[in-house]
């Protein structure tokens, strides 16, 4: 789902129709300047803190969680109308199926990180390849590839994800692939746009006139200059992925184990208990929102930091 980035070359907020060209002249000061600005931006710090906490919790889940996830070990304490709340053995109480809620939430971070990273990587690698080929080679390959991207874009992302998940079957991998494929057009357009913008730059003309092969120019010079926007986009896409998984769970897609520790799944399952045991839905829902917010803030702050147009 294209949340924030228009990705269509809208003339406003387009991060790559100017700065990167200047950047080359000043070497790495773009990055140094960016980090300096980021340090001063409280929301960038907030985003970074959230992201860091999320990643640490996700990676250290087995160490942090008091119990095993997704096993519904205390299922006999749960009834359709009530769920035990916080107690000495269970700091946050149980979840709707009878697993320890705190454990589920911690492992949920891990699952979200996994899904987010995998789907972003899929979108990034496939999209970037398409974009590079289109932008680097040009000609009819460009036309063909970009029409394919247009086709993907003409299907609303949710439907695209649903179609792919339907074709691949009900596993959590198919969900990751589905979300990843929906992100391909964004990265494709990004890379292609970046390449096209730089094609006219002086340094490229200089390099090619010096006799450097086009591929070397692309790989060794133009690509690193596109890194900034790609990182920005990747963080935004990760935020999207975390939310999209919840939406797909609402539609009934996702892995076959209902007790799985995954925030989106937990949220959907507990919505009807919102009035009796609100924590079951509010906790995963808040975590989804906060995590997505963290990534988005970080991404947006990075975008602004890298774009000298916003310097004042």
């Amino acid at each position: 789902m294209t949340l924030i980035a228009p990705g269509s070359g809208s003339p406003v907020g387009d991060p790559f129709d100017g700065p990167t060209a200047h950047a080359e002249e000043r070497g790495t000061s773009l990055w140094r300047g960016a980090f300096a600005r980021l340090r001063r931006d409280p929301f960038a710090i907030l985003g970074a803190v959230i992201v860091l906490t999320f990643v640490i919790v996700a990676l250290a889940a087995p160490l942090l969680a008091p119990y095993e996830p997704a096993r519904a070990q205390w299922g006999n304490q749960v009834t359709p109308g009530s769920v035990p709340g916080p107690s000495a053995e269970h700091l946050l109480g149980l979840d709707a199926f009878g697993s320890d809620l705190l454990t589920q939430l911690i492992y949920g971070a891990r699952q979200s990180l996994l899904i987010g990273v995998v789907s972003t990587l899929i979108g990034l690698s496939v999209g970037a390849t398409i974009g590079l080929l289109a932008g680097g080679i040009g000609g009819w390959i460009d036309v063909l590839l970009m029409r394919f991207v247009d086709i993907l874009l003409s299907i609303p992302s949710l439907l695209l994800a649903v179609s792919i998940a339907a074709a691949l079957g009900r596993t959590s991998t198919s969900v990751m692939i589905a979300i990843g494929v929906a992100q391909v057009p964004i990265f494709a357009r990004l890379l292609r746009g970046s390449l096209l913008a730089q094609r006219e730059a002086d340094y490229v003309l200089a390099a090619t006139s010096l006799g450097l092969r086009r591929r070397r120019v692309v790989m060794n010079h133009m690509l690193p200059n596109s890194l900034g926007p790609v990182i920005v986009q990747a963080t935004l896409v990760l935020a999207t992925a975390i939310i999209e998984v919840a939406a797909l769970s609402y539609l009934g897609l996702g892995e076959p184990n209902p007790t799985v520790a995954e925030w989106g799944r937990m949220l959907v399952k507990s919505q009807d208990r919102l009035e009796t045991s609100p924590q079951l839905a509010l906790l995963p829902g808040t975590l989804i929102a906060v995590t997505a917010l963290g990534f988005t803030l970080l991404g947006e702050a990075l975008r602004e930091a890298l774009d000298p147009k916003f310097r004042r």
Partner: protein
Amino acid sequence: MLRFVVRRLALTVPVLVGLSILLFLWVRALPGDPARALLGQRATAESVENVTRLYGFDRPLHEQYFTYIGALLQGNFGSSTQTGQPVVELFKNGFPATAELAFCALLFAAVLGIPLGYFAARRHGTPLDNLTVGASLMGVVIPVFFLAYLLKLVFAIGIGPLDFLGVFPTAGRQDARIAATHPTGFYVLDGILTREWDAAWNALKHLVLPAVALGTIPLAIIVRITRAAVLDVTGEDYVRTAEAKGLLQGTISRRHVLRNALLPVVTTVGLQAGLLLSGAVLTETVFARNGLGSTLFNAITLLDYPVLQGFILAIALMYALINLTVDVLYGVIDPRVRVS
């Protein structure tokens, strides 16, 4: 100008053709028999045989494709496996409700978002700027079905001490007990046209919460784009000159900045159609509104492949038309785009 339009059209057609090929292959790529997929739970050994013959699933692929395209061009997008209703009819029936909702959502987003974006831009660099942008992001980072549910809880049913806030309805497009006539299918409009003011007002009330829930998605984008556009323009020399010359801040804002900032907002409306539809699938279901979104939701949960196929194609067509219109409008306004 004409060349521009023709060129844009020429780019759209291959996309639609490509999409039809993809959808054609998709049904055949699904696990199981494509005939069963098209029949759903109405499949019996005999009906599967009939459908296989009818659709020619046993004939070579390219032959099948031409039959499929032939049917499409005749307006036959297939029929629902659940009700047997033609997909075209389902689309026609669901369109008004979703169009109403999308319009109100965008209205909400624009009415709230443009001032907010302007406000944030004028206070760029201060915490207020960040706070505004952060707040507008809330709608995007909270999954829309959850937000819809929370809105219902607080503003329709009412919780505990905040019970007085529960004034809106939770479900449907209009109260079931109101016997209203619907000549156009757009309930608010219908109420106005037939002078049934009760009905129109009632339909409007049913739109508020869903529009707010759905509107939080474009809200974030509009805030951001307005803010960026305003920052862009206020950084321009001509504005600084005007300021230096002592023109009132208000005059500058009204005449130059806002007008230039509105442009990108309008152009992104077309892009947001896809987002709005995805959001509508979830919002319409939570609010029990009978539109394209809830039809799609049922099609997804019941795996009604003809509906999914047909709707995706119809939506892509609609989307292409919207984008084309927006691009043409933009081309009319900004000559630079026409040349590129």
